[in-house]
């Protein structure tokens, strides 16, 4: 628990290093420490009801020059694909997306892997760069990669997805 949370805190710290001004999220128990951590840092948040809605809101904010990120779960990319392809990618709007992975070891949901597992390949087919942060990566790597990905998304004027591993808070004991 402590180790996993130190990595999620590193993700928050990496976004703070970047200078994040606002983030849009879709509720997730796995990503909750990131969401609450950013809010504790005083970063303004918008809660979206669906992932494509989050892409629209974040894209609009990015067009105003704000440093904005999305925090969500990887099983929501099925909802977000058309918005990512026809809006963020096509209009060259750069912002980072941080998505916790589901469906792996420790998963308790029987079907979520059916969309979570293929999500990286689906995104890559759209030409969207996908980075990964795992529990075997150091805290320092989590922090520096987070900042680097956010900077790169803005420079490339494209959304970039970081898939980050985190065990469900209720399943940490199996780790």
């Amino acid at each position, binding site marked *: 628990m402590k180790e996993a949370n130190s990595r999620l805190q590193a993700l928050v710290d990496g976004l703070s290093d970047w200078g994040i001004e606002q983030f849009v999220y879709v509720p997730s128990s796995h990503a909750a420490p990131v969401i609450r951590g950013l809010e504790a840092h005083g970063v303004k948040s918008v*809660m979206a009801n*669906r992932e494509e809605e989050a*892409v629209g809101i974040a894209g*609009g904010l990015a067009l*105003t020059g704000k440093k904005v990120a999305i925090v969500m779960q990887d099983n929501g990319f099925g909802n977000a694909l058309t918005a990512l392809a026809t809006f963020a990618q096509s209009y060259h*709007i750069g912002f980072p997306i941080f998505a916790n992975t589901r469906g792996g070891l420790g998963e308790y949901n029987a079907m979520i892997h059916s969309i979570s597992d293929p999500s990286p390949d689906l995104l890559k087919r759209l030409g969207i760069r996908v980075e990964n942060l795992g529990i075997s990566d150091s805290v320092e790597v989590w922090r520096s990669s987070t900042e680097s990905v956010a900077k790169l998304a803005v420079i490339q004027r494209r959304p970039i997805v970081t898939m980050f591993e985190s065990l469900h808070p209720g399943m940490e004991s199996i780790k």
Partner: protein
Amino acid sequence: MKRIDALKVLDEVFGNDPLVITCGATAREMASISRKKTHLPLLDSMGLTTPVGLGVALGHGGRVGVIDGDGSLLMGFSILPTLKAYAPKNLIVVVLDNGQHASADGMFSQANVVDIAGAAKGLGLWVAECDSADAMKAHIEARSSADQVSLIFVKIETGNTPNIPFYLADPAKLGADFKEALAG
């Protein structure tokens, strides 16, 4: 009122303020009468117009307009509670309601059988309804100093203006121009 006549008024009343415009015939008709760097037509992102407008309004200090359609709003209806939750007072959403998906062979929209303006009211949003250019313009001007987000539902005629060419703009340029206009 025909859609293109409503668009002429909207172009005039929003002036050089940011204006996010829904896809299909609406974007094409607007481009046929006015093209500005402050216009952001979404060429193929149905259902995303109002979410994008919300993002722009949250990041931009001045008035922001959205031109949505009943079909497009229904496709992303979950934005309405989000609008209420964040309620930026600088955002005015105009929904041109023709009761159909005019760009999809004129298939009927469920706005024919449900009261989408009433649904928005039920969520606690500020809502006006009208069917004339003068009333639409008056609502927009009155709400430009409002204390919360505004939704103006405008009944328009069915169908599209004939002989409007496809709008083949480069979306990357539209995005870059819009961003530059907001920064300026």
